[in-house]
């Protein structure tokens, strides 16, 4: 069953680990006493705070304004009082200037939050402006500002919008639950994106291990002649942008290029739902669905969490830790970022909080590369990870570049399959950084 469907070349079949939460409906997490809202939650320029200490804020109120084009504004997720603005640790690993709000529990909605009208009544530019103003960024994890993706240069002829419902990361079920519980929002957001781009073809791709989501979305899209729901093979990294575009269209995003080079724009399920809320309710991104799961949390759940809620509060609502949390991850196990502390806030890109016990978190010891070629066989980018890694570890970054290190999408499949447990993707990441640094010089 899971082998049926569209796919790409290469890839791996990690265990799904989705059973803990895939049948659990999305619950609203309680409003925490304090939220910490970082002024950068996206790829791009940081925001400038629009409020200062002592100010009262309401839900949906803009509290951080973006300065550059590649940036996205920040909104208050709670009503209450700004108590501090200072640098705080974030799930991205760096300390970022954050607005700290003490909640009043009222959740008073800001006056600016009101429905923006139907899709018919809005022009493509209106929709794009709403998206930009609502602080919408890629909710799959990378956090690229959505309005930028929706502003391709004139010469790029976009003819297809692909909605990423693959959710190929093990453990995560937030997109799965969204598709089951709010398919109309997914469709509305998809149509909004299509309208912005003037595209007549929308495709929602879902991995075969979510048959109920495929069925629900197909039913919801019955009367949408321009939107098709397709089944994808269950294989990692099926939800990688390039893999997904290839699976659906058989077009290869050129090396070093962008999806728009092959006429495609990809949006995540969570992102189109945020677009739907921004238009239909007028509510900017102030909350998101997060899967809290893993071997060291008492009650795994899918929660609707206010942006800025600390991991600790979220985990507490899930019954707390069931045993010593040896590893705490923002995102999924393949590409997520391990945290030093649970005192970091949920941000727009937090699709999951994965808590692993000692056994699951153990980092295996690396041994000699045996040249088994498993990494070559599965690399979705057609690279030879063992060779790039070898050169990177020797500090020979020019050779690493000659073996196309820059084409690595950092999916981590090579490290996953390696029987010698070598740090393949880690060393390739280092090579990429060094190569980029050199190019900038």
């Amino acid at each position, binding site marked *: 069953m899971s082998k049926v469907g569209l796919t790409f070349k290469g890839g791996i079949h990690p265990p799904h680990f989705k059973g803990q939460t895939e049948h659990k409906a999305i619950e609203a997490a309680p409003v925490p006493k304090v939220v910490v809202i970082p002024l950068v939650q996206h790829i791009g320029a940081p925001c400038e705070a629009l409020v200062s200490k002592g100010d009262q804020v309401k839900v949906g109120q803009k509290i951080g304004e973006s300065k550059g084009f590649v940036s996205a504004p920040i909104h208050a997720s709670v009503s209450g009082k700004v108590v501090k603005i200072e640098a705080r640790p974030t799930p991205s690993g760096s300390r970022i200037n954050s607005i700290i709000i003490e909640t009043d529990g009222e959740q008073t909605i800001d006056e600016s939050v009101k429905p923006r009208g139907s899709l018919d009544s809005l022009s493509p530019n209106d929709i794009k402006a709403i998206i930009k103003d609502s602080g919408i960024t890629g909710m799959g994890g990378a956090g690229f500002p959505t309005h930028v993706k929706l502003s391709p240069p004139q010469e790029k002829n976009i003819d297809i919008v692909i909605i990423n419902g693959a959710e190929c990361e093990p453990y995560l079920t937030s997109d799965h639950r969204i598709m089951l519980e709010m398919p109309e929002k997914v469709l509305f957001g998809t149509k909004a994106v299509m309208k912005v781009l003037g595209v007549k073809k929308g495709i929602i791709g879902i991995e075969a291990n979510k048959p109920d989501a495929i069925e629900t979305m197909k039913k919801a899209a019955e009367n949408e002649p321009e939107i098709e729901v397709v089944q994808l093979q269950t294989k990692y990294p099926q939800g990688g942008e390039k893999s997904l575009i290839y699976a659906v269209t058989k077009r290869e995003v050129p090396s070093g290029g962008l999806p728009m080079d*092959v006429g495609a724009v990809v949006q995540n399920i969570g992102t189109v739902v945020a677009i739907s809320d921004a238009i239909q309710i007028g509510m900017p991104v102030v909350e998101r669905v997060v899967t809290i799961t893993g071997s060291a949390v008492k009650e795994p759940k899918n929660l609707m969490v206010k942006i800025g809620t600390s991991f600790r509060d979220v985990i507490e609502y899930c019954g707390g830790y069931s045993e010593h949390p*040896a590893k705490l991850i923002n995102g999924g196990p393949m590409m997520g970022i391990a945290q030093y502390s649970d005192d970091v806030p949920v941000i727009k890109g937090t699709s999951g909080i994965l808590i692993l016990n000692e056994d699951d978190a153990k980092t295996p010891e690396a041994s000699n590369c045996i*040249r088994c070629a*498993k990494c070559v*066989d599965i690399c979705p980018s057609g690279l030879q990870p063992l060779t790039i890694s070898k050169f990177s570890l020797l500090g020979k970054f020019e050779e690493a570049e000659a073996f196309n290190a820059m084409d690595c999408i950092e999916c981590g499949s090579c490290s996953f399959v390696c029987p010698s447990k070598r740090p393949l993707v*880690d060393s390739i990441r280092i090579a990429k950084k060094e190569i980029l640094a050199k190019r900038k010089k």
Partner: protein
Amino acid sequence: MENKMIASSSPHIRSTDTTTSVMLDVLIALIPALIASMYYFGFKAMLVVALSVGSAVGTEAAIQKLTKKRVTINDLSAVVTGLLLAFNLPVSVPWWIPVIGSAVAIAIGKQVFGGLGNNFINPALAGRAFLVASWPVEMTFWTTPGALTDTIAAATPLAMLKTSSPALSPLSDVFLGRIPGCLGETSAILLLLGGAYLIYKKVISWRIPGTYIATVAIIALITNGFDFTGMAYHVFGGGLMIGAIFMATDYSSSPVTPKGKIIFGIGAGVLTMLIRLYSSSAEGVSYSILFMNVATPLIEKYTAPRVFGTGGVKK
């Protein structure tokens, strides 16, 4: 919980495959042929295997201890080398042949280059080549399976084929392994069984053994005037099966690229038949593989897989 969390970089999950599990699979695949060698050549076969494996593991541990490296005999790679070398010896060899052969295989074939994964030639074949060059008589004294004494020399099917001897073993014996030859190379059918297991477990790909065996078969068919029986002797009668399935697929001395594996297999097949047909030797598998081992870096250089997104824009 403070300060006790692991903050390593992604991915945070790994497959259950390990170097040891891979080597164990190779050993499992060799078990049927091992049992056959004991059945055909008796207790002496077991002794040769034990000495060879013991020497390989011992040499690896000793060198790693002496050079103050992590002792990695638990990865079972030395066991595989020892077993493969034993499989490449006649049963009649004196006890010190497997001992010296395995020690040379591990010391010079493997550890000198940095250990597992760094050897550019197959260690077992390096050991065998050393033995054949040093003690050619002991290394080519063949015994008929089931013979009560091992003092009577017999000829292998390929040698008989070469000299057009009328005493050529029947093909059914060749297929089952009831023929004179090295310990583990004789039973084609059991070696194929092991190969099927390795391909099924994705330890090896079909590319090297498939193209190697096919190339030998095609050349043998043509040079034998399209006589399938003659071809069958070439394919099943010598060291091709063990060579193609277990020796040529040695990870570290064969290409990692899919196209490279195909070139490697075809090259080894052509060389094997050139040696068998035009040299004084009846057998040619081990030298062909060694030659291709040396050519591997060059093959890899020209067979890199196509990088995604470099096929020209298709829209």
